[in-house]
């Protein structure tokens, strides 16, 4: 297979990682909401922690995106 074509296919596969990261972020906020519905008064204090967890999950998705970009644009 032509190496350039292989790179493009690899970049496409690496970008699937962002979809998985989206699942992770959604799981975090889903759990936060279900907990917040049970105990609304404590929800506001923990809202920051929900964003910290979301940032960590999103960070790994960004690495998948970085791999795709490196495959596409770095000779």
């Amino acid at each position, binding site marked *: 297979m032509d190496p350039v074509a292989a790179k493009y296919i690899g970049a496409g596969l690496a970008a699937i990682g962002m979809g998985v990261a989206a699942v992770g972020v959604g799981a975090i906020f889903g759990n936060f909401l279900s907990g917040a519905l049970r105990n609304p008064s404590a929800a506001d*204090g923990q*809202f*920051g922690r929900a964003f*910290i967890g979301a*940032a*960590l999950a999103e*960070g790994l998705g*960004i*690495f998948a995106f970085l791999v795709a970009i490196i495959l596409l644009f770095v000779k």
Partner: protein
Amino acid sequence: MTPHDPKDLEARLASLKSGLEAHKATDQRQNEAAAPKAENMGQAMSLGIRVLSEFVAAIIVGGLMGWQFDTWLGTAPVLLLLFLLLGIIAGFWNVYRIAAAPAKPEIKPDSTGHKTKE
């Protein structure tokens, strides 16, 4: 003979209370400065962005340092992998410091002059 005079207890309670308030004030001030509590959407988002950028930056710095040392010393991807791993650990360490920062309050004498030791 009453072992505990009620007025004595009252005085001790009042002094303990004021000492506790002083500690809580410095503790809260330092906590708020170092790790901002997310009270509303904007602060929560800024906290999230801060965590994201520190996490990603630590891993990227680890990767770049490992790659540079590899190029200088000629070793194969060993150093790159090692520094990448260290960068990941450093990223989690940074996030831990932001999220659960154990702010050590300085042990100051409280208003009654007692230096409470922890």
